[in-house]
């Protein structure tokens, strides 16, 4: 299924590994580590996150606990691993919401250029962009109670206008191209054209924008749980570990630094993957001209 998306547009030779930009390789490996640990946390954890052993409190990194223990004596490494599943899960689903609602709207806006649906959709997306995203996320989680599902919705809603505008801009550009004119001459409707011709060609841009929004969603989830509006206690989350560890920063600095660095590394890996993909697609998009 991926073949059509990844077919090179420009240079014929597409040797897999040696051709990939460095940032994609480095980011990809790092991200796989996080993704694997998130997947692993569903089945196995080095230590049981729910078991509190107060006497083991604030132990530094040691052989038993590689990254030390927090203020309840829980192992920080296993907290991070189980936190990874929450953070990545929330980010994946909120990007999913953004794409599933944003892209179809964007394509219809592009298809119906200069008439009513386009205006309404654009005004709606401008309004959504005008809404202060963090304030609204707080409102949503406050109204419906803090939980994973609510933070997914709260963050997901603000991905919609981003994908909408991107798919509309790229779509408009493609509607002027020759093969769309040919398709229109074959009597294909706007819906079929959008599906067969426009979507496959804007897929690379969506993928790049998707990775960027993915990293922003991870940060968003961390911020929400830092404010206490994210996942509930049995589910550990990076943001909440940070907010709890904030008061112990002088007593046990590692409890504050380790989750912070994990967030940075995870978001950095996703950004590097995004940067690498952009380089990959840019190098392909250059057309050999006479």
């Amino acid at each position, binding site marked *: 299924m991926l073949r059509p*998306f990844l*077919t*090179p547009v420009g240079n*014929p030779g597409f040797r897999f590994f040696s051709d990939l930009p460095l940032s994609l390789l480095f980011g990809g490996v790092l991200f796989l580590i996080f993704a694997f640990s998130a997947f692993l946390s569903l089945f196995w954890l080095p230590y049981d996150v729910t078991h509190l052993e107060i006497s083991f409190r604030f132990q530094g990194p040691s052989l038993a606990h590689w990254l030390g223990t927090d203020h309840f004596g829980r192992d920080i490494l296993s907290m991070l691993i189980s936190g990874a599943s929450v953070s990545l899960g929330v980010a994946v689903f909120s990007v999913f919401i953004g794409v599933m609602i944003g892209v179809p709207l964007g394509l219809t806006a592009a298809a119906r250029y200069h008439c009513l649906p386009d205006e309404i959709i654009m005004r709606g997306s401008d309004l959504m962009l005008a809404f202060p995203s963090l304030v609204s996320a707080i409102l949503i989680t406050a109204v419906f109670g803090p939980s994973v599902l609510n933070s997914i919705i709260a963050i997901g809603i603000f991905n919609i206008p981003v994908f909408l505008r991107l798919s509309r801009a790229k779509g408009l550009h493609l509607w002027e191209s020759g*093969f769309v004119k040919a398709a229109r001459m074959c009597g294909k409707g706007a819906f079929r054209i959008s599906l067969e*011709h426009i979507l*496959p*060609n804007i897929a690379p841009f969506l993928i790049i924008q998707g990775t960027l929004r993915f990293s922003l969603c991870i940060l968003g989830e961390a911020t929400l749980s830092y404010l206490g509006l994210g996942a509930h206690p049995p589910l550990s989350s990076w943001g909440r570990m940070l907010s709890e560890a904030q008061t112990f920063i002088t007593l046990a600095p590692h409890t504050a630094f380790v989750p912070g660095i994990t967030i940075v590394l995870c978001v950095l890996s996703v950004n590097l993957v995004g940067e690498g993909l952009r380089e990959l697609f840019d190098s392909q998009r250059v057309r050999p001209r006479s």
Partner: protein
Amino acid sequence: MSLSVEHFSLSIGKKMILQDISFSVSPGEVVVLVGESGCGKSMTALAIMRLLSEACVETGRIILDGNDLCRCRDPELFRIRGRDISMIFQEPMTALNPLMTIGNQVAEALLVHCQASHIDALHIACKTLAEVGFQGASDFLGRYPHELSGGQRQRVCMAMAIALCPRFLLADEPTTALDAVSRLHICKHLRALSVEQGVGILLITHDLGFASAMSSDQVLILRTDGILESGTKQSLSMFMHHDCVSVSADFPASFRSSLPPDPSLPPVLEVRDAVCEYVSFPSSSLFPFFAVKDVSFSIRKGEIVALVGESGCGKSTLMRAILGLETLSAGSVRFDGAPIDLSRRKVQAVFQDPYDSFNPRHRVDRLVSEPLFLLDRDRSLCSAERAILVEEMLELVGLSASDSRKYIHEFSGGQRQRISIARALILRPLLIVLDEATSALDVRSRSHILSLLSRLSSHFSMAYLLVSHDLSLVSEVADRVLVMKAGRLVEEGTTAQLFAQPSHPYTRDLLDAMRSLDRG
């Protein structure tokens, strides 16, 4: 005092572009560099101007007044460019900075080189613009590039290049994007520069007509594998037969359809006083802008009609209306008596830019079989039938059946245009609209495409509507010619009659411009 290139070779990544080329240009001499598209002609010019991207690996020397430009550092290069050597580029539409006025852009070269004050720099700029053919240049100074036509922009580029009277001028295909009239002006000015001001000109082009018109002293032919051959002026006809630059000499005589169109049959296409108006959004002018005004004509079965006019005369709007991509404000377009949306199967089109008219994500078989979607409504073909039809079409246009599994980026410009024709033919339409189908191709693939079209026309007795601004092509191919100017049909007639005594003054200008270029 000459510009000489000695044993220069250039490669990007692993691909060798230029192999050990040597030539020299002395002041007052016109050197023409000819070659197929994509053989690296433009790279030579960019190499001389030291404007190549970082990925190029060069060996050899480029000598100007004794010092080697390859070894120069940036500060000396800034002094040399513009003052001793300057260049004109191919794409006038993007060569000018959209946010700066014409005056400033031309004056900038003066400001930078001779630290002149802004006022007298503008004064000199105004003088240079008048020199290159702008009447009343002073009011052009304040205008922006998007307010000018292609020809005017190219003249501005020329003004920029010659503002400081450089000793050498590189012109990289200056006229391909222009129409006949402005091409003639550019040619006159270049010739005046070399003769009167002793400027050494290196002209790069793939348009033989223009090259012979420049009465060049030296002609160099760059082959696709990067090796340069030199020919003298007298042996101009010799390289006419060179395999890579064969001209229209081997045109199929039988192109024009033998039997005259039978008047009794109902016309394939009938356009009755079509009107297409644009109310451009911000223009507060009272009368709307008319792209097409009261155009009526008809095309009969098997007839080849050409629609000619300068760019911006509304011929492409009319073509889009005929193809059903745009709705007419008034009037009607009929195919065999039926409106367009009922008779989509009867008309197909071949577009101008081969690189833009195919979805890069689809395989060739899916591209070619796209029009079969029209059949799905009444009887849907199974995939086996589709495959056979596609292979048949590919063989018909001279490609192999195995090509159907490939992706479009694996084909050259000429091959893509063949696939486009295969796509148009698959439904056996009555009329094929050729929207400047060959203007983006180089000479050789253009002639192959035209011969293919002639074979198909005689085989399937199909009608063609050829939309073009290239009169020499029209005179060879079309039965009848329609001339359009500013949205109106100013003249209509058979090719022979129109070329013999054109009635409308505008047609006469077009023909004179074409003839003066051909005679050279």
